[in-house]
């Protein structure tokens, strides 16, 4: 418990706007500061950012898959697909990744003579996204991406 409090206090020292974190991330990437990049992304994880904007930001700065994939998974599991506004923010290429994963995920649930469709599973969404993005799934064994 003490450790958690200390951890939170340390993070409390780091309060910045999205614009400021973005400029820190840009410099960390441009000048090769991987520790600062990772720290910045961990701080961004607790910021309130619209999902499409976050995915665009993470893709722009080539953020590690362990941070990026959970947000893709959210978009896949969500009932509604990306909105026009989200598609515009993410761009066609990234939006297509989401649409393809959503399609793959939902088509696998439709079985002939089946009754009510099964609920979407997070693990299936992770598998679909990892497969489309070319990552090893965290569910497929050692040496693969592990999520936070």
């Amino acid at each position: 418990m003490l450790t958690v409090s200390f951890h939170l206090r340390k993070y409390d020292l780091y309060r910045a706007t999205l614009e400021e974190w973005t400029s820190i991330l840009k410099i960390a990437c441009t000048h090769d500061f991987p520790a600062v990049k990772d720290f910045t992304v961990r701080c961004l994880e607790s910021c309130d950012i619209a999902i499409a904007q976050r995915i665009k930001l993470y893709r722009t700065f080539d953020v590690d898959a362990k941070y990026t994939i959970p947000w893709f998974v959210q978009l896949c599991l969500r009932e509604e697909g990306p909105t026009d506004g989200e598609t515009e923010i993410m761009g066609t290429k990234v939006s297509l990744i989401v649409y393809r994963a959503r399609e793959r995920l939902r088509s696998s649930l439709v079985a002939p003579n089946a009754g009510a469709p099964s609920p979407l599973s997070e693990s299936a969404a992770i598998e679909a996204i990892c497969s489309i993005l070319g990552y090893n799934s965290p569910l497929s064994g050692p040496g693969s991406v592990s999520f936070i």
Partner: protein
Amino acid sequence: MPHSTNPETFNHVQRHSEYYIEGGDLFLLVCPWLSAISCANDAFLQVDNTFFRVHSYFLKRDSTKFREELEAAPEPGKKRKGSEESSAIQIRETTPDEFAKFLWVYYNRCNNSIFPLLHANCKLPS
């Protein structure tokens, strides 16, 4: 990638109010514009160029690019890169405000001290 600077073009630069730290051993020149040094209109383009003076320890520790740049042997008769204003390392296409915010990650103020994390071995929270 950082670049070395030409000392003859530094007539209009300023020193950063917060991160020109007495005792810092690394001099950096932050240039918001891509070709700030090569453009003929120095008075206009250099108005926002700003010297920073910080501790090389963090930059060498956390950036391979900086480590290679700073540990490279100076050319004969020349100053070591970043060792003074005349050999400051250029940080291009970055505003002074952006670079100051980046340094804030290392020099985050706590109890009005500018060195809190430096004393705490400055490992970023994990």
